[in-house]
């Protein structure tokens, strides 16, 4: 018995973990208990030194003093407060009006606003609930196909998982030992490509089955000029002016070609937005009548999210702020915005703080549990067992990537990204590094994959939230079926990133791994080469 256990302790430990987790007991404590149980078994069988457990407090201390994870409560608080500021409602209403005249217009608006909200709030529930409450009834009333309407909303809400400042990317960066800033930069292009793929799907439907995504009839478009004109020409002129201003600024101000392109882009775009905002303000205050109602409204609803995006992501990309500081400033900015809109009272502030505190606590406790688990899992050479399993997959690097992605896709049916990130990533990352795979790239690839955990029927949380706010005539089966095309798009995106690694690649990523490692020698190593 004990000989069998000594030879197979890593697989036995892993199977025990699965049983513990499936028991329905809180994951954090099941992980920790499993780690400690096997630490004692290991010591008893002579596989581990008893001194191993003395590393426990310093493990905990390492998590406490981790400044990257501090970004988790900051961005969460920012999202919860923005949820109160009414930004989502304003955006959906106005952008829906803007695109309404096109076939599939409301669907495009949902995708566009979903991406904007994702880059500011990063809260899936908030996006899905507000889109389900505001856009879904509009789409139903004007004859959208239920499956397409619900699918678009559920999928666009999950963009928050991939577009920076997503919590997934922070957690993955921490687990992979890479910088959050690099992770954000690498995720930007895949995130935007994915958004475009969603839009392309709507375009395809509008060509193949026009009746499924009709344009809004004129009477549904209330944001019109007194004479009945759409006011789009005025908006177009303002946009052209703003683009010209940014272009001129980038051209004449940044003459130094050595400046990084993203820095130039961020500063120039800010100038363009400021100009548009100034024109709109002047128009409203001085009653100049230069702009149409539509143009003015669009500028006013677009400025708060764009300002926050530039404040948070801009300062992180340019290198003015660390992601943690970006999160802190974002939370402060969101507070200012919510107070300015008179949407924040003490009660809701207190609620937001308390919810954030509980979320932070359970997320970090999963990490605490996972790190106790990995302390003894590594002690019994479980990491070598996993490496052996993964490197013996046929097909070299491609085989490894496909194997890992299939594993994540299947597990995403049952687990959420925190569990996947904290339990599996530490096992996979060292193997990937040995195979010469760029870890930032791998992180982005896996977060596209993990995004599906929100869309998998029947447990996907995005679907679940949508169901809770959708009108009764929307069938649950329509919500489930509607998610399937978007799951396929997600898989296409995973394939695209594997085929064109350049999509999620950035130059000069920094290795943040701490070089100090606990060196625990086990007396017996069943996986070492003879």
């Amino acid at each position: 018995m004990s000989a069998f256990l000594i030879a197979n302790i890593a697989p036995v430990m892993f199977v025990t973990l699965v049983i513990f987790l499936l028991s329905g007991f809180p994951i954090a404590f099941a992980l920790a208990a499993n780690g400690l149980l096997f630490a004692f078994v290991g010591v008893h069988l002579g596989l581990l030194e008893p001194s191993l457990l003395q590393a426990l407090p310093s493990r905990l201390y390492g998590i406490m003093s981790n400044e990257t994870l501090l970004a988790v409560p900051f961005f969460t608080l920012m999202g919860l407060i923005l949820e109160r500021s009414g930004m989502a409602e304003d955006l959906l209403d106005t952008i829906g009006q803007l695109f309404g005249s096109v076939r599939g217009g409301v669907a495009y608006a949902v995708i566009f606003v979903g991406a904007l909200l994702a880059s500011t709030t990063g809260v899936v529930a908030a996006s899905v609930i507000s889109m389900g409450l505001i856009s879904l009834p509009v789409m139903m009333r004007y004859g959208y196909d239920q499956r397409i309407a619900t699918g678009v909303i559920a999928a666009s809400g999950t963009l928050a998982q991939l577009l920076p400042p997503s919590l997934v990317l922070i957690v993955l960066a921490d687990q992979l030992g890479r910088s959050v800033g690099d992770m954000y930069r690498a995720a930007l292009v895949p995130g935007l490509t994915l958004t475009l793929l969603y839009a392309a799907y709507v375009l395809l439907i509008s060509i193949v089955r026009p009746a499924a995504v009709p344009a809004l009839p004129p009477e549904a478009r209330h944001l019109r000029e007194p004479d009945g004109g759409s006011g789009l020409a005025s908006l177009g002129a303002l946009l052209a002016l703003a683009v010209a201003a940014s272009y001129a600024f980038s051209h004449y101000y940044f003459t130094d070609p050595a400046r990084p392109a993203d820095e130039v882009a961020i500063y120039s775009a800010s100038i363009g937005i400021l100009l548009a905002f100034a024109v709109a303000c002047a128009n409203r205050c001085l009653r100049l009548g230069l702009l149409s109602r539509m143009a003015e409204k669009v500028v006013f609803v677009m400025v708060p999210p764009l300002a926050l995006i530039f404040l948070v992501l801009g300062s992180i990309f340019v290198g003015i702020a660390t992601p943690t500081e970006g999160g802190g400033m974002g939370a402060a900015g969101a507070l200012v915005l919510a107070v300015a809109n008179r949407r924040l009272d003490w009660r809701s502030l207190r609620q937001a703080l308390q919810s954030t505190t509980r979320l932070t606590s359970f997320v970090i406790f999963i990490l605490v549990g996972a790190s106790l688990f990995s302390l003894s899992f590594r002690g019994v050479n479980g990491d070598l067992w996993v490496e052996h399993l993964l490197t013996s997959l046929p097909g070299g690097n491609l085989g490894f990537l496909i194997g890992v992605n299939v594993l994540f896709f299947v597990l995403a049916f049952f687990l959420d990204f925190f569990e996947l990130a904290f339990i599996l990533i530490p096992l996979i990352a060292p193997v990937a590094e040995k195979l010469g795979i760029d870890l930032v790239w791998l992180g982005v690839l896996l977060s596209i994959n993990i995004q599906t955990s929100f869309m998998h029927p029947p447990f996907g949380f995005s679907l679940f939230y949508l169901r809770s706010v959708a009108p009764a005539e929307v069938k649950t089966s329509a919500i489930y079926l509607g998610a399937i095309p978007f799951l396929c798009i997600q898989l296409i995106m995973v394939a695209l990133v594997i085929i064109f690694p350049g999509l999620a690649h950035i130059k000069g990523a920094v290795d943040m791994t701490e070089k100090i490692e606990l060196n625990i020698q086990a007396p017996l190593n069943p996986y070492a080469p003879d």
Partner: protein
Amino acid sequence: MRLLLALSRSIDTLNDQIGLRISWALMVAVVICTGNALLRYTLHVGSNAWLEIQWYLFAAIFLLAASHTLRRNEHVRIDILSGRLPKRAQVWIDIVGFTIFLLPMCFIIITYSVPYVRDAFTSGEISMNAGGLTVWPVKALIPVAFVMLFAQGVSEIIKRVGFLAGMVDASAFEKQAPPGREQDGPAASHAGRPGDIQ
């Protein structure tokens, strides 16, 4: 049993009070973080002590709120299989789990962390950064948090045994409905979960 239930109630109240109060530390951390970032880039001043206080607060937030989170039953579970079991079976799983997973875990961590804190205290350890803070108060959070968690575990066991004995309503330990949805409609806080986990 009545005495035990009273004990359970006082543990709940104490941990809730601490967990709810500590959430203001997050507000303080936001202000300090923003202040640090702004001061550094406008006046080019900064201090390690002000940077360190941020993660001291972070540690206090997640550690001291853990037992309150447990009381609200908001630690994540995988309930795909166990969710289908009858209520009493689920309660049994929890009783067994708290007894053989949670309590020993807390006990072990407390045992190992007390000497760890004592060393930091007697040696007067100061963080490695120049102008850093004294380390022992933040290290002392580890045993404090796990004592709180141990107590909460005991309280949870008492409530569940009380439920099996028909003396306690299941609402005493079940997850509460997401707050805030009733009074302000669409964008109300959804239990505050950006990850959105079960």
